């Protein structure tokens, strides 16, 4: 069901009103969402009064929130937790459900359109209410222009999945439609009829301009994405290209830690699997003349790619987390897109489609063997 809520110049207040109402009705037991204080803090909020501090539109993403959902709702069985997710977080949520890292029935998802987010350090050092207002004003025309002197996160600049609903695929229980709307006047709401009726909303259709704005933005972003991916794959080509692309990597593994898909607590790179004795290292040094230390830089990135590329949601948190500014995310999402295409798989599109590594067909890749 579709509806529209009037915001009377206060989009945040209107959304907070919805969140409070769902909490008071007992639809959710608590909200997992960003709170603003001396910055942005994600929190599991039970206290209605604290919801006043909710910051649903702050254009920043300290972590991919799906990771926090998998912390709080992995086992489930204690009622529903409401969570406010951007589209890339929502896609990660869907993948983590399929990897049994989130109990689907314990979560109520509120999705939202997203025009882009800033790097956390840029957001923290700026007049952040101005950033928020600037981006809210851009939804109507659907033209994302970063605030003066800043850039959006690289992943956001080439994001093509910026709405929470997709044709026939997974849709969150509630979706906030901002594109093609002036959020200071009204926000489109789409979701389960019971939920919307419980909020006292009538069926109402969104303005037709909304769909036009969405498709125009998608077209523009698709072209930009293609260009960025081709450029990156050109730069990282061949072993020399790859080494040079990753040459400033300091092996901190932050890209892995912040990746919502890299959920394995016993990742092979955190174990002793590849620890060797001194005499083994000396033998390698003897044979090759020199062994890089720490070892296994290329092995780490290529292995991680093999393990998660099929489900990479292109959230770009790896790039944001890299202290050396390596654009890991564009490389991984460019390769990921090609790998996913082998299986006609789009991460986050559907809860029913199994991840490519979790199934097989008897009649496929017949030319490989």
């Amino acid at each position, binding site marked *: 069901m579709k509806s529209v809520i009037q915001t009377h110049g206060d989009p945040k207040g209107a959304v907070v009103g919805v969140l409070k109402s769902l909490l008071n009705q007992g639809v959710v037991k608590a909200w997992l969402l960003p709170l603003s204080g001396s910055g942005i803090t994600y929190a599991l909020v039970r206290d209605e009064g604290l919801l006043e501090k909710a910051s649903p539109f702050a254009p920043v993403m300290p972590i991919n929130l799906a990771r926090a959902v998998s912390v709080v709702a992995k086992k489930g069985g204690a009622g529903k937790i409401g969570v406010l997710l951007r589209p890339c977080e929502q896609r990660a949520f869907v993948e983590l459900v399929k990897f049994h890292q989130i109990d689907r029935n314990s979560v109520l998802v509120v999705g939202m359109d997203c025009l882009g987010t800033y790097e956390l350090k840029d957001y923290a050092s700026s007049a952040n209410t101005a950033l928020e207002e600037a981006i809210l004003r851009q939804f109507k025309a659907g033209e994302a222009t970063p605030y003066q002197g800043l850039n959006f996160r690289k992943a956001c600049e080439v994001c093509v999945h910026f709405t929470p609903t997709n044709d026939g695929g997974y849709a969150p229980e509630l979706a906030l439609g901002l594109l093609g709307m002036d959020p200071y006047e009204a926000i489109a709401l789409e979701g389960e009829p019971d939920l919307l009726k419980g909020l006292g909303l009538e069926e109402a259709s969104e303005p037709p301009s909304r769909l036009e704005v969405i498709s125009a933005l998608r077209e523009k972003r698709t072209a930009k994405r293609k260009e960025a991916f081709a450029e990156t*794959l050109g730069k*990282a*080509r*061949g*072993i*020399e*290209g*790859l*080494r040079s692309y990753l040459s400033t990597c300091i092996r901190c593994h932050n890209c892995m830690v912040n990746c919502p898909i890299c959920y394995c607590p016993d990742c*092979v790179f955190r174990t002793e699997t*590849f620890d060797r004795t001194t005499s083994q290292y000396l033998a390698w040094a003897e044979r*090759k*003349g*020199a062994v*890089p230390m720490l070892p*296994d*830089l*290329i*092995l780490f990135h*290529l*292995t991680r*790619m*093999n*393990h998660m*590329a*099929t489900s990479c949601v292109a959230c770009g948190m790896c790039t944001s987390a890299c202290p050396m500014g390596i654009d890991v995310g564009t490389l991984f999402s*460019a*390769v990921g897109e*090609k*790998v996913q295409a*082998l299986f006609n798989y789009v991460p986050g599109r559907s809860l029913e489609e199994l991840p*490519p*590594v979790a199934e*097989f*067909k*008897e009649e*496929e*890749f017949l030319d*490989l*063997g």
Partner: protein
Amino acid sequence: MEFEPRIVGFLCNWCAYSGADLAGTSRIQYPPNIRVIRLMCTGALDPIYVLRAFLEGADGILIAGCHPGDCHYLNGNYKARRRVAILKEILKELGLEEDRVWLRWISASEGQRFADTVKEMVEYLKAKGPSPMKNPIL
């Protein structure tokens, strides 16, 4: 001196490894360029071991297991085939010569097929030359 490629073979215990064994006991001649690692199933092969072999100096990788439908564990080879498809696509996109990774189905009775596969692969890699992935980092 002619370039002699080094091949690392990941062979499943039930089919390809037995096939290699049969090639030996049948005295079938094949080039000594392959170093065999026995696995219980190709489905147990994580791509990390293939990548590691390349980075440590392999010129080619042969992954061989039971024919489709014949897996000792019912479907491990189908899972392996998907992983190899993913691995090869990644290597291809990064220009890392995915044609150095071969997946072949060799049954326990196919000693000749094993020997022929190794011969064919050695010839292919000789024509192609050494793998660039083993170059030292400095």
